[in-house]
């Protein structure tokens, strides 16, 4: 019996030992957002995130992921809003047939989690494992840059709010915390 945390939810699965992670996700757990395409680690359609890195699920043994935290395309949006990367792909028209997109988005997310303002070279380097037959990649690059900006602004807001709470907790600023006793 193996235990996985997938999209923040725990699963206990009885594995045979020779299933790939891709087969586990799609066939056993019904998480079909991750796509089956080349199955030879060349197209990137099966990309998921493990430890914030882009990983190809078609060449990962499910048994090797016992105890790991895995994020698939289904795990990006919260209950109300799309993830900034997903929203950016919509806003910039970065999808055509859509088949490569889940894998592409997962690679983009891994990139932006590490670096919210990638250079063009860093962008192409991070996405060099995801092939798109339709778009010519330009809109995808625009979407990644746009998402990076949104994520960077959110980080600023979160940091500002955290700093505010810290100041209030130590009572350092009376106009925020009220007069000290």
């Amino acid at each position, binding site marked *: 019996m193996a235990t996985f945390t997938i999209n923040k939810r725990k699963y206990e699965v009885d594995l045979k030992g020779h299933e790939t992670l891709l*087969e586990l996700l799609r066939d056993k757990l019904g998480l079909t957002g991750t796509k089956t395409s080349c199955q*030879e680690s060349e197209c990137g359609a099966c990309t998921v995130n493990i430890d914030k*890195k882009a990983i190809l699920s078609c060449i990962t043994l499910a048994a*090797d992921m016992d105890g790991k935290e895995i994020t698939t395309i289904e795990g990006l949006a919260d209950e109300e809003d799309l993830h900034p990367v997903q929203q950016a792909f919509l806003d910039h028209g970065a999808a055509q047939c859509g088949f490569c997109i889940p894998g592409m988005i997962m690679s983009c997310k891994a990139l932006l989690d590490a670096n919210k303002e990638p250079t063009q070279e860093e962008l192409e380097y991070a996405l060099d*494992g995801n092939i798109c037959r339709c778009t010519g990649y330009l809109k995808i690059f625009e979407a990644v840059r746009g998402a990076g900006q949104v994520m960077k602004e959110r980080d600023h807001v979160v940091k500002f709010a955290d700093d505010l709470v810290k100041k209030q907790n130590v009572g350092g600023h009376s106009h925020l915390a009220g007069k000290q006793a």
Partner: protein
Amino acid sequence: MLLNPITYHAPKTIPEAAQLQAALEDARILAGGTFLLNNLKQLKKKGLKTPKNIVSLKNIPELRGISANENQLTIKSMTVINDIFNSPLLKDNFSVLKTVCRNISTNPIRNMATLGGNLTSRYTWTELGAVLIALEANMHFIGAAGQETVVSVEDFFKNNARSPGILTHVAIKRTKNQTFAYQRVRKMSYVDVPLLAICLRTTFQGDRFSDTRVAVNNCVNFARRDSTLEEFLNKSLSKNGVAEESLHHLDMALYDTRADEYKKAVFRVHLREAVKELITRKGKQHGNLHHQ
């Protein structure tokens, strides 16, 4: 199912992994999986025999990491390519590893593929053999009885890449005055199919090449040295014309691969560029160049 039924073993220590490898019938070692799983799928598709057992090294933390002191760099065998590339420890002669790692396959593969798998998979097109021969690196293995075997990367590939146990780490001596050049030829850019990789190393004494190593991955045979070119360069000065002249002093068997005549002509261009690069880099460290 993409794979045939297989028994999966997940040892937690190096001795346990070495004992399992020796004891199990028909077992393959699983490192990053980037070679093995595709190989197993291909074998199944062709109706060929697949191994009965897989021994995964993923649960052995002692096999991961990079460390360095004033004398040596140590890279553990399960360290992935991107972690090697991103390591701040790749200074002095180690910096050429950055360029090589930068050019291996694609980003998700680099997040999964390991140093150990790249060296011990017994595929001839793997990248790290040539550069580690140029760096005079040593490979450390642990056998089933706990015995350590140390073999130079050069000798390992001369012995047809046969592993005498579990590869634990690669050790490289630090040197400060060596100059490196690296050239890589691939079949196409959108899917990485390497054809040739050359790593040159020399210690310039004034304008003279000395202690030169030329390590070649021709993707048909295991990585080895071109002693003909080494001998020529060690007798030469780094002057105009030496790069062109070097094309007349090659171990031609190394470059006579299954590639077509056009690609073999491209090899010669890259060989010439490698020598030029060596001269240009006199006194400089390697960066993270991406070769097309």
